[in-house]
């Protein structure tokens, strides 16, 4: 891992925050704005997991360990909201 990579990730996370703020204040379609903001948040999280937490250098089984709860969580989130009808 090089310094420049970490600096790039840091800058990206900051830019993504600005993009989220810009989207929330300038995109009038609520659903589109929400989708875009969540996408930015997911990309930030992915960048942190890949580069700060170095999951790219860990065994594939660690990636699986991370993905399993994320998968359960996705099921929970979708079903909980869907249970509203």
């Amino acid at each position: 891992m090089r310094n420049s990579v970490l600096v790039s990730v840091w800058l990206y996370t900051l830019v993504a925050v600005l993009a989220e703020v810009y989207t929330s204040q300038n995109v009038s379609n609520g659903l589109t704005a929400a989708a875009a903001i969540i996408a930015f948040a997911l990309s930030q999280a992915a960048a942190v997991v890949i580069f700060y937490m170095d999951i790219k250098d860990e065994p594939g089984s660690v990636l699986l360990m991370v993905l399993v709860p994320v998968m359960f969580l996705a099921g929970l989130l979708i079903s909980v909201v869907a249970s509203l009808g």
Partner: protein
Amino acid sequence: MDAASWLRRWITTTNHKDVGLLYLFTSLYFGMAGGALALLMRVQLSVPNNNFLSALYYDQAVTMHGLIMILWFLSPLAIAFFNYLVPLQIGAKDLAFPRLNALSYWLFLSGGILAITSFFVPGGSAASGWTTYQPLSSPTFQPGPGPTLVYVGLLLLAVSVTLGSVNIITTILWMRTKGMGFSKLPMFTWFALFTTGAMLYAFPTLIAAFVLNVSDRLLGTAFFTSPAVLSIPGIDPSILWDNLFWFFGHPEVYIVLLPAFGVIANIIPSFTGRPLSGRNWIIISTALVVLPLSFGVWMHHMFLTGIPLSLQESFDVSTEAISIPFGIIVISFILSLVRGRIQFKTPFLFALGAVVLFIIGGIMGVFLSSPVLDRQFNGSYFVVSHFHYVMVGATIFGLIAAIYYWLPRMTGRMYKESLGRVHFVISFIGFNVLYGPMSLLSDMPRRVFTYPNTGDLSIVNQIATLGSFIFVFVQVLLAYNVVHTWFRGPPAGPNPWGSSDLEWTTDAAERTPTVTSETPPVGGWIGQLAASTPAPTPGAAQVSSHGEFHHTSVRPFTLTLGITIFFLGAPFYPSASGLAAMIVGAAVVLYTMLSWARDDLGEKFSVPDEGEERYPFSALPKVKLGMWIFLSSEVILFGSLFAAYLFLRESVAGWPIASSIHDIPLGTANTFILLTSGFTMAMAVLSIRNGKQRDMLLWLATTFVLGSVFMGVKISEWSNLASGGFTITSSNPMYQLAGSAYYLLVGLHGAHVVAGLVIMLYLMKKTISGAYTKESHGAIENFGLYWAFVDIVWCFIFPLFYLL
């Protein structure tokens, strides 16, 4: 051994066998307490219109019977065997994190003490059913300190189980002896891995649910029954509770059941003289049950709540699907019996009984997967019969089989076989007399304290009550057999069942010299239990002549003592005694944490890494693997709270606009600060990897400063919000609700930040003393993971609360 030494030994032990014995006897005690409550209920129901118990006391008995039996008896009984046997079966000298293991036990005991204490405070215990449904478990319908003690106890128990899961999973994945690949892993250890895997992802949801519940009760948040919030059109927080509780609750069924299946799979070969049939199929099927399926069926508990039909159909299919892997497992068991030469010893009889009872209960469960039939059966004694056949019959019979099977391993002595067989026959009869008739009572509502004298309700209930007395009191035979074996049993020999598993073939040298019928008791009956492992010497880990680690620490006990005192006082706040208890408890916690850190700085407690089979985690240090496992459970914890937030937000129209509440530029700036601290922490890790200790210290200090600034800004932000009327007690119901969600989630994240800051102080202190080098800096790597996770959580909190 004098009384003081005896007490010190058990309070300070971190040895896996000792902790296993503590779990074993404590869970059996809770089992007796839960069984006594069951007898009270059965006496009440033995005749129509009975007034032996009032409605309130009956409800409390029902509630605490369910909670104690499921959470403080069945699961911990399995954990007792995990503790004692898993390291032996995989050839490890202890669990991966011995102090964490002791802490898990004390938290489990603390939670149980809080729950039992609830009976002795004004108003009595919780009476909302073991599901603690909202709004029944809210302060509106369950006022008083008693229910709060129970729910706080549940919270501590859930934390205990989550920490225990991290420990056992890390042990199995990382500490296997040479040659102990997954293909050779004993079946009980396989099932321990599956069970703790399910615990790891299920219990954080329970933590999230009870964080909301206890927060309503102690902090006054408005998630469930604030009158103002309930006046908001469209809101129904009870559905939120159902979702969170059953996302935990249904996997919990398998968490309770699977250890018993592990016992059965482990001991069948010993009594049939043949390898288990379809071993790989059993493993694959159980993996299917644990990973995708057990977490995908919870809504079948909510068919009557009005959830959309499409969801009901989906969960109908997933619930029926889960019967397929269980069918494969049971068929494999049966095939193993058909092909073997069976010895009808007591452990085998109980294992066989467990399979039979599971088949009966499992078939009843298939009916309940249908939304149509569920409408008929739900809330009736048919359901009571079903889940007792599965959770009580299969599980208790399986775990009793474990007690008989491994008793010779624990004591070096053999139990009375004839008495064991009598115990099995009467237990099997008593169980079926108790729960069989209940399956006929599909028109009698459960959880109701009495019933009218109509039809044949009376006679069926009387038969069930008779069965309950038979089933409960015959357990005296088990107690007698265990105690007799421990003190008077004849020598069992090193491997009485002819098993090829490692626990029978290792450290026989430890047991054999102590195994004579003449061995006198040491310091009373439990003192003799202590003799199963040599007395440890305080201080650093020592290796005994047979290669087992012995180490002690009083910190897990004192930390839990402080937590217990704090939470015993919290429900009585703001009374002076309540406040005093909270202050004393907090002081004990603080002192213990400082002492714990001092122990580590002085390296007073260290356990050497061991284990040679680590595939597929060979490249990962032990603590780092543990950290990854822990963080994966944190994903579920925060995710469950996000799910709760989204549910509440989507269920009402007119949620407050974020920009009208929050200072967006300030929130954005604070987000920059936290994200920058994530960067500086990554730089700290990179620096020490390159051997630059001074740079690492600077980056770490910068991270500390940024984290502190983040918290400072956060506190000033909360102050501004509160002065602007955005509080959990606002007259605006929307503000109450939004405020509750905001302060709780951001507060929990803040608690993680504060914990991180404290750890950073410790790391900086160690760095200054030169503890970390290019070659040895695991703590920095592990903290880097934690701090990055804190960053990730904020990546979602910021947009959800400040922008959307």
